[in-house]
């Protein structure tokens, strides 16, 4: 083309000659643009790499927590051990305090062919069984005392160390004295596994059980219920309070020095370290108001205080983003201020408000520090029936398990993190769905 346009024949036709090209720094500008794009891509790649590393580390360590090694064998509920003197009709305490672990040990010893005189053998057999059989068998017998004296096939938890060994998490190359499972136990484990008596099952206990010092019986059930109570309290309190405060500040309040001060303070509160809210909650809700310690109610109140600034800021931004022409249109028709806000402005701001609220809730769900101060970092084994009962929260449970020494708690820590992440993903999906639903109205 350039040849054609500068050819003498075209100049002869009256086409103007091309002036000399100016250097307007095009090469430099394009290079800067390319560089900037590269920086951007590098930043995103960096972020993705760490996200991938995080997920890989958590999932690879935690996926085994969703399976638990269990032993299924015929168990003789011997009257000899449970209720030797046949007192259960007169003394109900008898069935509660009976020595059930021995029942399980004898059953397993029988299957493995360990004699009743082999004390060392019996101890090794006992080490394969979770201590949680005491509670499990007690519940079986107290609900149906007629099984005493009969033999039933029962599935019960293997000991946490055996579970770790069965999942290949214990290095068998380490000298026998330095590891938690002996060679004999590993041999038995393999025999039982071959016969099908020992197998991995889906770990429902992880979702239903409370805290336990025995890793194989520990679960996030109590923590999940505690977190659920707190989320409900946060939602019920912070959404109406936050939205009402934002609507008043944005649409009704006069713009003066006092409202400016309030605005600055709200923005500052959003940046206050969460542990400070914990101290505030301890002083106000526990010491002054006298609410019970470790209760989900207090946790929920503290997290509400913490979430409010986030929700108010998000809601105000959403209200600000509604075009003023919509307000003018409604006011010009004779709508009152309140009708204008509730009929036109609020519905348009709804997607932004919901997104802000759910982000605030997700923050609150993952918050640990303030809960430590109000006593929610406690060993709670029973599911809280009301928000006034002692409870823990998912992130606190993770924190506590991370401090445990047993190998089996490592996978549980990661498993609990996975559960927490799934909750967060569900909440975010909920936010996206709600936003879509509200945005669809033109």
């Amino acid at each position, binding site marked *: 083309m350039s040849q054609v346009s500068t050819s003498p024949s075209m100049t002869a036709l009256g086409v103007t000659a091309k002036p000399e090209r100016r250097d307007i720094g095009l090469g430099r500008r394009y290079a800067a643009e390319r560089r900037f794009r590269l920086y951007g891509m590098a930043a995103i790649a960096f972020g993705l790499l760490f996200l991938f590393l995080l997920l890989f580390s958590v999932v690879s360590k935690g996926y085994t927590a969703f399976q638990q090694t269990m032993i299924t064998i015929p168990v003789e509920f011997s009257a000899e051990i449970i209720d030797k003197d046949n007192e259960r009709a007169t003394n109900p305490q008898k069935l509660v305090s009976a020595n059930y672990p021995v029942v399980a040990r004898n059953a397993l010893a029988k299957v493995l062919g360990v004699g009743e005189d082999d004390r060392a053998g019996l101890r090794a057999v006992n080490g394969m069984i979770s201590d949680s059989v005491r509670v499990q068998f007690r519940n079986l017998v107290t609900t149906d005392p007629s099984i005493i004296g009969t033999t039933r096939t029962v599935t019960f938890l293997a000991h946490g160390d055996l579970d770790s060994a069965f999942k290949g998490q214990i290095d068998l190359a380490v000298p026998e004295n330095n590891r938690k499972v002996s060679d004999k136990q590993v041999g038995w484990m393999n025999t039982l596994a071959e016969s099908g008596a020992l197998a991995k099952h889906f770990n429902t206990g992880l979702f239903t059980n409370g805290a336990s010092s025995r890793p194989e019986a520990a679960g996030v059930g109590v923590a999940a219920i505690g977190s659920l109570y707190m989320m409900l309290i946060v939602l019920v309190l912070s959404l109406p309070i936050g939205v009402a405060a934002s609507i008043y500040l944005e649409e009704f309040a006069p713009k003066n020095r006092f409202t400016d001060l309030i605005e600055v303070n709200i923005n500052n509160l959003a940046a206050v370290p969460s542990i400070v809210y914990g101290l505030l909650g301890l002083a106000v809700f526990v010491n002054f108001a006298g609410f019970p310690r470790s209760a989900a109610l207090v946790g929920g109140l503290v997290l509400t205080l913490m979430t409010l600034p986030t929700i108010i800021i998000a809601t105000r931004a959403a209200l600000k983003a509604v075009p003023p022409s919509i307000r003018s249109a409604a006011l010009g*028709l004779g*709508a009152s201020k309140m009708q204008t806000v509730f009929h036109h402005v609020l519905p348009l701001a709804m997607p932004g408000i919901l997104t802000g609220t759910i982000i605030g809730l997700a923050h609150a769900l993952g918050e640990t520090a303030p809960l430590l101060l109000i006593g929610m970092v406690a060993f709670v084994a029973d599911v809280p029936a009301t928000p006034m009962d002692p409870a823990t929260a998912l992130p606190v449970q993770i924190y506590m398990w991370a401090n445990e020494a047993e190998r089996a708690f490592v996978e549980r820590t990661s498993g609990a993190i996975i559960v927490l992440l799934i909750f967060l993903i569900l909440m975010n999906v909920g936010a996206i769905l709600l936003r879509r639903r509200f945005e669809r109205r033109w």
Partner: protein
Amino acid sequence: MNMMSEAAVEKALDKKMNDISYKMIGKDVSVYYGDKRALYDVNLNVRENTVTALIGPSGCGKSTFLRTLNRMNDTIDGCRVTGRITLDTDDIYDPAIDVVELRARVGMVFQKPNPFPKSIYENVAYGPRIHGLAKSKADLDAIVERSLQKAGLWNEVKDRLQEGGTGLSGGQQQRLCIARAVAVSPEVILMDEPCSALDPIATAKVEELIHELRANFTIVIVTHSMQQAARVSQRTAMFHLGNLVEENDTDKMFTNPDDQRTQDYIMGRFG
């Protein structure tokens, strides 16, 4: 009615003398935005069933004056209005006057079409609904149809009343906004440069509409287009630097204005 205001008496006298009825009377109207004064003692009367055009260069205060007529200036922080404006016999800045009721009597159409992000039907039905003008669903349907017909939009949208109002073209949106204002059955309709965002064809339609609406409503229109003022209005008021320069019959204004500044502006020598 022995408590008639001074302005009302004036109006009655004026009517008797000239056989002209004034719908709205503005007396010594001044507007301040904070410390800045935007209007200087404007005296301007709006005649009933007449289209009054407000012209003048940008920033001359014509939109500000228009917005004092239904107190839309109230929504601006730091805005202060002095002087007196009456609608019929009511002083609209009297504390006893409810601004919501005033705006139901003095409707407004804005510069940029601003339909609600709702259906066409809902856009028109909103005003009657909040003011309780319709007794039944059928009643409301009738108001919507009549308003859309008055706005010349009925034939174009009657089959898609439930579709979004923002999906219409710019000109249709502006006529929807006019239908929305008409649906409340106001006495006065204020239009703030209603055609500035529209193409010539849509503008022609809206102008034709203004012409027809004159039979039932008193209209005050702010416009930047001299030709539009000449085409649609019977009375024209020229503003400059916050002052009312001249107010006259449109024909006289565009052929033989009294004031030199009007002459210069219309001839395009400034502005």
